[in-house]
């Protein structure tokens, strides 16, 4: 059970942090925080494809939508466990949502991952849109009217810890995959596909694996999103949502797990944090400043906040220079 030590410890720390937040923050900050956690899951999972494996996917919102709708539908329609085991039921359906999205990822990935670069971006973008348009035309899922009255979590603490459980699972899964032979395979595909092929790596299979794992966590993120907002409609899963996740990955640094997390927090919090500015300036300059700061960050740090390193490495380098 040694391999569970680090994840459990992380979870314990996060739970304590959650308990503090439960008392210290009001509902508004808590909601933003929950959105940030969902975005963390999204950016970490997309980082696996866009960062580590070097494939450019633009369809993340589609997989998120699948997860969100599955969890919403399952939780409202199927009641398999007694109310006392509510948390377990949520967990099962979140896993289900992830698996559902993973299957979709496999179906999308198998044919399209034979393509490269721009072509892959266009194909994944297309699949993302197909998923959204399909949802628009499914009447039992509310179609364009959206799906409302999704059961949510009873308290902030519950939501926070539930999200953190998934965050921990996601982080350690991807982290450990990246430090295994599979991870080396992913990296080799990114660095040089021909060389990787020559070394006996089935590059398509590697890409599909990364893609499926990434879709799984996108589906879970969608499920969490559905429970947090309690109302979903296809308009939440547009192409812009996919781009938003790509921005997080690029901002954090392609191939940096901690970078993805930090960037997800920045992207979620920044637009909200700029709201008070409106009181000072009188006009709503929020989105102008938001975009400007993104441009500035990319000019000052072209490889993203952390490049392809983790926050620990950046920190160590910084400490060494200062000593």
């Amino acid at each position, binding site marked *: 059970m040694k391999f569970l030590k680090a994840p459990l410890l992380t979870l314990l720390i996060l739970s304590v942090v959650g308990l503090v937040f439960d008392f210290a923050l009001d509902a*508004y900050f808590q909601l933003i925080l929950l959105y940030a956690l969902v975005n963390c899951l999204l950016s970490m999972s997309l980082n696996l494809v866009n960062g580590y494996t070097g494939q450019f996917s633009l369809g993340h919102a589609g997989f998120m939508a699948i997860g969100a709708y599955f969890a919403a539908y399952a939780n409202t329609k199927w009641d398999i466990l007694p109310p006392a085991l509510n948390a377990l039921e949520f967990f099962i359906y979140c896993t289900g949502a992830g698996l559902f999205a993973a299957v979709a990822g496999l179906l999308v990935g198998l044919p399209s991952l034979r393509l490269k670069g721009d072509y892959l971006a266009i194909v994944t973008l297309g699949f993302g849109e197909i998923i959204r348009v399909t949802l628009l035309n499914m009447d039992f899922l509310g179609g364009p009217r959206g799906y409302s009255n999704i059961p949510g979590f009873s308290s902030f603490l519950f939501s926070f810890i539930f999200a953190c459980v998934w965050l921990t699972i996601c982080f350690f899964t991807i982290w450990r995959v990246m430090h295994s032979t599979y991870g080396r395979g992913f990296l080799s595909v990114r660095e040089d596909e021909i060389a990787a092929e020559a070394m006996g790596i089935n590059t398509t299979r590697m890409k599909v694996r990364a893609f499926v794992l990434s879709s799984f966590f996108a589906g879970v993120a969608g499920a969490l*999103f559905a429970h947090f907002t309690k*109302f979903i409609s296809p308009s939440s899963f547009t192409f812009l949502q996919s781009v938003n996740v790509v921005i997080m990955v690029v901002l954090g640094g392609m191939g940096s797990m901690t970078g993805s997390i930090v960037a997800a927090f920045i992207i979620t919090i*920044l637009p909200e944090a700029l709201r008070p500015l409106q009181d000072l300036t009188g006009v709503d300059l929020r*989105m102008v400043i938001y975009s400007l700061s993104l441009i500035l960050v990319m000019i*000052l740090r072209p490889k993203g906040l952390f490049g392809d390193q983790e926050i620990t490495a950046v920190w160590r380098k910084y400490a060494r220079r200062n000593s």
Partner: protein
Amino acid sequence: MKRLILAALLTLPLLVGCTKKENEILIGEYDSLTGSDATFGLSTNKGVRLAFEEINAAGGVKGKKLGLITLDDQGKNEEAASAVTRLITQNKVVAILGGVASGRSKAAAPIAQSNSVPFVSPASTNPDVTKAGDYVFRVCFIDPFQGFVMAKFSSENLKHKKVAILRDVKNDYSVGLADVFSAEFKKRGGEIVADSSYQAGDIDFKAQLTQIRSKNPDGIYVPGYYTEVGLIAQQARQLGIKAPLMGGDGWDSDKLSEIGKEAINGNYYSNHYTVESSDPAVTEFIKKFKAKYNETPDALAALGYDAARILAAAIERSPDLSGKAIRDELAKTKDFGGVTGKITLNENRDAVKSAVIIQVDGKNRKYISTISP
């Protein structure tokens, strides 16, 4: 230096300041001030601001001034939810004036409900919106009523027998109107000869229109938003379709004739109010609105204005500023003389009032008739 800028940039979010003025009753408003349907949000906001200015000039409510905090939701559901949460928890507003789009209201209203803060939507016409709970109101009629109005007008006034429907499947508003129109028109002995669909953002509608033309309908019901309707009108005339187009209040924008040019002239839509009305309340409102913003108010501005005034009247009547007291007074609103007609809030917290039928004539809007519930 580089590092300094970067650090400053990243700590920017932490500099959250909050201003709070004493002796003010704070009302929150959220709307799409940016994004794809920003004209709706901006219009509503202008109406609300005008109403607040007037009320404050006349001495305010309960001897206090009304303060307005407007937040942008970018047209996104989740942003609407966080904007409303912010208004309630950070700004501690006593009531919320909701946005235009029904989808956003559906995401935001339950939050107001669970915090017991009264929520008044100016223009969310989808029936489900006020089902969020007893703190959620609206001052506009609901989608079924607009579908009903047009079906009645089409079969009684225009004597249509066969009508085709072209709906925006992406849009819950459009689908709602089309469904009710279809049911009501059939009930009146008419026939729906074609029911085609398009999606917001489409540019070419010739395939659907050609199919509709083959059925030779007396009229075509297009309950969409002005951008697509303008294009549909043009393409319909290009294909030689003479039948009039009919629609709902989503048509109501100056952009309609900019996009549709002459092709849009002579078509009908249902609306909340018309600038041609001779009602003194309306003429007075238009005069004031023009003086302030130098433009003609559209229906959403009028609804925003009415929503703000109904809310202010309820706050004035209520014994204290608690959510419950204001809610109870809002529910008692009866025959309120608004710009968009005499407004009564029924037991479902929906407004009961009449609708007008308008004919497009270039930049002008010709008032045709008033249809009562």
